[in-house]
């Protein structure tokens, strides 16, 4: 039987499960239920919260264009 959305909120992710979903969560690539369950875990887990803070800062720094990253590498992966 399909569980209700509300019931899913009662489930709690472990740190291990959150770690496996963290990058997708940060990139907005998880569904709403997963997002809520990750956030529910983060409300009480400082260990995972540190991870989130660090990766969020990394993403922000990269988005500011702090790196000259990539270009030739992207191209080299395409031309095979």
């Amino acid at each position, binding site marked *: 039987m399909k569980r209700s959305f509300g019931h899913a909120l009662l489930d709690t992710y472990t740190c291990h499960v959150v770690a496996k979903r963290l990058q997708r969560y940060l990139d907005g690539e998880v569904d709403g239920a997963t997002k809520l369950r990750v956030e529910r875990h983060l409300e009480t887990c400082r260990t995972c919260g*540190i991870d989130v803070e660090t990766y969020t*800062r990394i993403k922000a720094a990269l988005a500011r264009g702090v790196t000259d990253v990539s270009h030739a590498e992207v191209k080299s992966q395409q031309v095979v």
Partner: protein
Amino acid sequence: MNAESVAPESDAQMFNRYVTPEIGVLLRVARTMTSSRSDAEDLVQETMLRAFRSIRGFDGEHARAWLLTIMRNANINRARRTPVADSLDEPELLLERTPSDPAVLAERSEFDEAVRHAADELPAPFRGVVALVDLDGLTYADAAAVLDVPIGTVMSRLHRGRRRIKQHLIERGLAPRKAART
């Protein structure tokens, strides 16, 4: 009124509906795929031309992925035509994207510098995915379309690339070591 009485969209209308809204994204990604602004603009122009020519065959689904695929193929052809034209390893091209104003350089934080260094040191496959997702803001699906790899490969490379950057920051005391999970 039945469906047959509705006039089909012209090529130009379809182009404006599906291609025009994606030009900004195409320019950002092209900037990542090429070494200069002019090359990026040429690539986008070529992509738009190809898209216009084939707009009749486009089914209206996932326009961005469709356009990114066209751009990937256009870039491959372009690279074959000019095999040594645009390596970003060329110092003068790197300088183009590097602020020259001393004040700007001075303001760049130690954290940002460390991220920059770590990202530049990443193996090429990781670096490419990090650039497309974090720099260009592509979704996993769109990055996969650009690189012609499965989404799982994008996720794996992205995760490993970011983890290496984080480790670099930890080693320099710029990010906290994580406590053991319980």
